[in-house]
């Protein structure tokens, strides 16, 4: 089992306008986009959303295949949503009589509507995670949530935890690989047997991994303290996030999109 070729998150490196947007703006715009998708009252209203997502993804130069990958784990839910709506919704204009159920026009429209909504929601969020490195995303979230410090929400601590996790995931993977090889050399078998046998085989892997993680955590805490870490208080940052022209343009585009969605919903 090759553990070292696991890529972190699903970031697709690039230097497009979408990649360069301020992460805070991107997060807020995603929320706006989600609102827009929920606002869409009919199928026509999805047209501007689809056009917008198409435009942004082509701007970002992320391959369509990568975008669609995000849908794969959801395929069963998608099909289920579609079929349940199709068969069980009551409507006025029958399209097809299957004997056990009657498919109506209204049911078909609703089925398409709900599945499309789900697809668009996933695609919109994928666009954010595909064009923003996890660490930048963390940064953006920290800044957005920092006003909540007033009510003792640990925004800085959460971001620090995230970034330490990101730093140590490759290190821990390497270590897991090493321990697995060592245990395999002693005759351990991680790949055959039923579920219980395999779960049992993981014990000699997880125990040393846990022990060493705790030691690492202790070491790291000591090293951080030695480097004067004392929480978010009075801390400055190397990377400061700044909104630029690009970000304002993006905000404008999303505002227009919401207007278009609302308009389309009215026209119909």
């Amino acid at each position, binding site marked *: 089992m090759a553990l070292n070729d696991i890529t972190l998150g699903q970031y697709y490196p690039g230097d497009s306008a979408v990649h360069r947007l301020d992460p805070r703006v991107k997060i807020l715009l995603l929320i706006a986009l989600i609102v827009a998708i929920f606002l869409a009252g009919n199928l026509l209203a999805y047209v501007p959303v689809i056009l917008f997502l198409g435009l942004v993804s082509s701007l970002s130069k992320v391959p369509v295949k990568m975008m669609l990958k995000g849908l794969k784990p959801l395929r069963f839910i998608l099909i289920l949503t579609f079929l349940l709506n199709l068969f069980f919704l009551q409507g006025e204009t029958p399209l097809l009589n299957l004997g056990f159920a009657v498919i109506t026009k209204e049911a078909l429209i609703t089925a398409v509507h709900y599945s499309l909504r789900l697809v668009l929601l996933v695609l919109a969020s994928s666009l954010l995670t595909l064009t923003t490195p996890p*660490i930048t995303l963390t940064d953006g979230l920290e800044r957005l949530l920092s006003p909540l410090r007033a009510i003792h929400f640990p925004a800085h601590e959460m971001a620090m935890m995230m*970034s*330490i996790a*990101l*730093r140590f995931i*490759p*290190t821990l993977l*390497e270590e897991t690989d090493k321990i697995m090889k060592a245990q395999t050399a002693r005759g351990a078998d991680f790949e055959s047997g039923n579920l219980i046998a395999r779960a049992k085989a993981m014990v000699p892997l997880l125990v040393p991994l846990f022990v060493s993680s705790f*030691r*690492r955590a202790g*070491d*790291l805490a*000591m*090293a*951080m*303290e*030695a*480097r*004067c*870490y*004392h929480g978010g208080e*009075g*801390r*400055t*940052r*190397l*990377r*400061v996030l700044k909104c630029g022209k690009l970000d304002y343009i993006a905000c404008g585009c999303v505002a227009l999109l919401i207007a278009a969605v609302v308009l389309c919903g009215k026209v119909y």
Partner: protein
Amino acid sequence: MAEPIIVADHVSFSYDDEGPQAVRDVSLTVQRGSFHAILGQNGSGKSTLAKLINGLYTPGAGKVTVCGMDTQDEKNTWEIRRRAGMVFQNPDNQLVATVVNEDVAFGLENIGVPTEEMPGRIEKALRDVGMLEFAGRAPHTLSGGQKQRVAIAGVLAMQPEAIIFDESTAMLDPQGRREVMAAVRRLNREQGITVLWITHFMEEAVECDQVHLMHEGQIVMSGTPKEIFADAAKLKPYRLDAPPMARLAQRLRSQGMPIRQGVLTVDEMAEEVARLCR
């Protein structure tokens, strides 16, 4: 010039009240700009002493002063840690950020250095340890020696006056050890940064100004490398071996070659042999 920068005055410390003392009545003075080594076998209290100096622990008895500041006083803690930085043993467990230059920035962020000032200080620190070209790399893609040099840069960026190295080469291969040693020597020589070098490699201690030998929490011997390593027999009770060149000199002497006392490094040995061959 002989201004003391780190002073331990009859310092004792134990991890739990009933337990044995990890550090017992240790007194130590390190002059500004000098290079001191602390030697000792496993569990002799070296790391504990280092952490006492850095203010990570405070002494149970006695007093530790760094740059004139008492470590017991909590007001001084951050300033002491800035001025006397520390580099640890495990290269994997002391880098915090996902990118090298951001890791170097970590300390600066903690002490509130203005953002505009950071890039310049990071660049200088990375250049000083020869890691500038790796500024954009992820730590896990670096070798052990390179990781340690990044850790040094992280301390260096904070413009310390002294750096304590707690067995910082112990987990490295010979190549990595040489890299790190060379970087530290250069910092000591060119920038006058005081170095307290904790190790159990004898050969790393031969080129420093003062060696302190720790055993069961006490400093049992202090002196120049020549004084300490003059007599291998004196090191035996502390289960330490003389440095390789001192042992070689001993053997050559027993074979009848009149190698003079105090030959500790490869260079000195080469010179001495050349002298005898003339």
